[in-house]
């Protein structure tokens, strides 16, 4: 949800979040008008939609800030429409494809689940009525209240989530403990090496599905993009463990599904992706970007990824399939800096480009992304699973900011040492 204060501070014409709502609002009303939503055949409803559309048209972003009255009216208008939009998304977004068993309760094991993806995934699964166990070493609490999560919701979740304490590198323990419990489905969110999978598969011969969190980092670098699931993979990549795991799964005959995210972002991100930008924006510092700044990357919201993980559960169409999961649009490095500023309500940042080859940063990372184009097509997941990201980039970054960094929480302290090296030299590259 958008911070209402940010709303009021926003010029309708400037705030892209509002613009998104305008488009969505219009879209929903047109759907009603053309009878596309079940229940919209009613003439009264259609008339109301027509009236609202006219009202919406008249509320196009005004060119200047002064329209406070208009803003207030629009807020109520938008709230009402937001309800409709959520309804439409629920109604028109198909559920998990062909599957018959989605609603039946499953005994699910998540390897990991207390850090980032699993935190959101476990909640969705518990809400769907499944029995969910987290396999962790117990270093972090099994359940921690999320920012924005009500006490009731959290109590409900923490009363249901189960814990299996152990070290997944202790293969004997993994095998014995899993076979003792018996699970229907395993989500492997934190696995890195192929060896880690074997004891799990050995322990659970009747496993219905093994769902793996892989990575788009397995793709071989190419001049032709986006990466598609059928593209060549790089056996020498940093993520070869993920690749090897996928191969082992394929060879074992288990019903497996593998999701390949690109860069994941969202509240509680432990990888300083958006946080890296937010630190600099908050400090009012210029943002140093390597090279031309037109490198194209891609971010996917953790909540959309969690939903994808749920949508493949018990889904025949996901059987033995790989899916790229990330945002529908990609973004340039420069564009991402601007998007973070927009999302968090900061003024447009100063961008400073530099040639990374001219610096020795030692072990420090001067920029949180690989210095290359890197993005993957999510069309297969959209077509085959009917999955669709709910967050666009600015919305998703706003969600992350409002629930995390904007509340004063972050994982890594700001470290501007590499920035200062760059800014000290003040070299500006040709675009």
């Amino acid at each position, binding site marked *: 949800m958008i911070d209402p204060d940010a709303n009021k501070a926003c010029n309708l014409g400037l705030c892209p979040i509002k613009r998104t709502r305008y488009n969505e609002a219009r879209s929903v009303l047109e759907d009603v008008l053309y009878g596309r939503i079940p229940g919209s055949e009613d003439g009264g409803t259609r008339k109301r939609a027509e009236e609202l559309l006219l009202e919406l048209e008249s509320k196009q972003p005004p060119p200047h800030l002064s329209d406070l009255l208009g803003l207030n009216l629009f807020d109520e208008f938008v709230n009402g429409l937001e309800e409709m939009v959520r309804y439409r998304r629920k109604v028109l977004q198909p559920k998990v494809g062909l599957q018959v068993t989605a609603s039946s309760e499953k005994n699910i094991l998540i390897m990991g689940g207390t850090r980032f993806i699993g935190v959101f995934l476990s909640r969705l699964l518990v809400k769907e009525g499944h029995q969910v166990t987290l396999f962790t070493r117990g270093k972090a609490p099994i359940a921690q209240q999320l920012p924005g999560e009500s006490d009731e919701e959290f109590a409900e979740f923490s009363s249901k989530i189960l814990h299996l304490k152990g070290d997944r590198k202790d293969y004997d323990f993994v095998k014995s403990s899993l076979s003792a419990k018996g699970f229907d489905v395993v989500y492997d969110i934190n696995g890195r090496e192929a060896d880690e999978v074997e004891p799990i598969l050995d322990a659970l011969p009747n496993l219905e599905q093994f769902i793996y969190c892989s990575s788009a980092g397995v793709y071989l670098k190419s*001049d032709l993009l986006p990466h598609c699931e059928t593209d060549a993979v790089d056996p020498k990549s940093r993520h070869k463990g993920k690749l090897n795991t996928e191969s082992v799964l394929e060879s074992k005959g288990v019903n497996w599904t593998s999701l390949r995210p690109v860069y994941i972002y969202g509240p509680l991100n432990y990888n300083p992706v958006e946080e890296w930008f937010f630190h600099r924006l908050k400090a009012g510092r210029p943002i140093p970007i390597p090279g031309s700044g037109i490198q194209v990357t891609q971010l996917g919201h953790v909540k959309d990824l969690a939903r994808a993980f749920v949508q493949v559960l018990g889904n025949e169409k996901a059987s033995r399939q790989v899916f790229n999961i990330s945002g529908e649009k990609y973004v340039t490095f420069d564009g991402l800096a601007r998007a973070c500023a927009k999302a968090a309500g900061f003024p447009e940042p100063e961008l400073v480009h530099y040639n990374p080859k001219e610096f020795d940063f030692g072990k420090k990372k001067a920029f949180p992304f690989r210095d290359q184009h890197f993005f993957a097509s999510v069309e297969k997941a959209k077509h*085959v699973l009917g999955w669709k990201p709910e967050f666009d980039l600015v919305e998703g970054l706003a969600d992350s900011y409002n629930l995390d960094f904007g509340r004063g929480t972050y994982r890594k302290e700001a470290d501007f040492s590499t920035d200062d090296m760059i800014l000290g030299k003040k070299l500006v590259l040709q675009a």
Partner: protein
Amino acid sequence: MATLASSSSSLLLSSPPSKLAQASLPPSLRLSFSSYSHLSSLVSISPSSFLACPASSRRSSVSAFTVKASAAEKKKVLIVNTNSGGHAVIGFYLAKELLGSGHEVTIMTVGDENSDKMKKPPFNRFNEIVSAGGKTVWGDPAEVGNVVGGVTFDVVLDNNGKNLDAVRPVADWAKSSGVKQFLFISSAGIYKPADEPPHVEGDVVKPDAGHVQVEKYISENFSNWASFRPQYMIGSGNNKDCEEWFFDRIVRKRPVPIPGSGMQFTNIAHVRDLSSMLTLAVENPEAASSNIFNLVSDRAVTLDGMAKLCAQAAGLPVEIVHYDPKAAGIDAKKAFPFRNMHFYAEPRAAKDILGWRSTTNLPEDLKERFEEYVKIGRDKKAMQFEIDDKILESLKVPIPV
């Protein structure tokens, strides 16, 4: 059976497909439904690698399946074709593909049959259209009715106009003569540059662009219309240099000067992909109606990447040199055939709505292109590279003798 709610805009399944997507249906089948409840022409079914699921989207994407109409549903198609430039080859390929599918095709080229422009490809190969059973005529689009001799058509494709002045007479005549489907070749160049590639259908366009005015006009005047936004294309019969620009330098062992970082994305499709998408629209008019389609391949390539692929296709090395056009004092538009920025659209609507698939394979396709390049002797042709020389001089790069 899922209910189909048809409206003046495109098709949408209002409820999830229950009986349609049965597990018993082999996943390799793809079928499509139009609002014609009887599909007497339903004959051929094209396999594909995965089942498409309906997804709610503002594009109102259709159901899981697409059908190729057989020759039983023949259309009478008029292509109004430009007489020069990058788009010229589209009409040529489309005419041949439609004729091959059994449709009747007339291609009207703007201008005079005897003009010098007609000595260049694809026009100098129009005999191929005639021998396939098509008609070729020439004239002024403002007089289209007379030029086609008062014949009426089911489908009109305008592959000529860049603004309303050029297209209006064709559109008006089409409407008054009862043309059922009006198709327009627009341009992906009308998308407003943005931070978040790619350009997808529905993204903001430059409101003053001529093509935008045309799209608006046809959407208001035809109940069945579609607009196609292409980028660049390769293929035999192309009227405008694309890959040749790279080959010219590579075979002569000249450096390839690329403005900026060379990391800019562009989209270069084989023209057969454009033709197949347009053919699908002709043969599935209800599905295509009231839609914008990016008429491009499904992969982007960087400018550096294109240079490298051309070199690989030629089996030769390549030396890429980057430069800042301003610093070199040259007009990048004259120096280089592609835009000096990300210019990258994806064909999502065609995949969602028409079940279209891209077949462009640049590494392979460029090999064929290079073979033809050599076959016509262009590698031996004497050429001047004045602008290149100016660029190289400004960079103090040695100019090859």
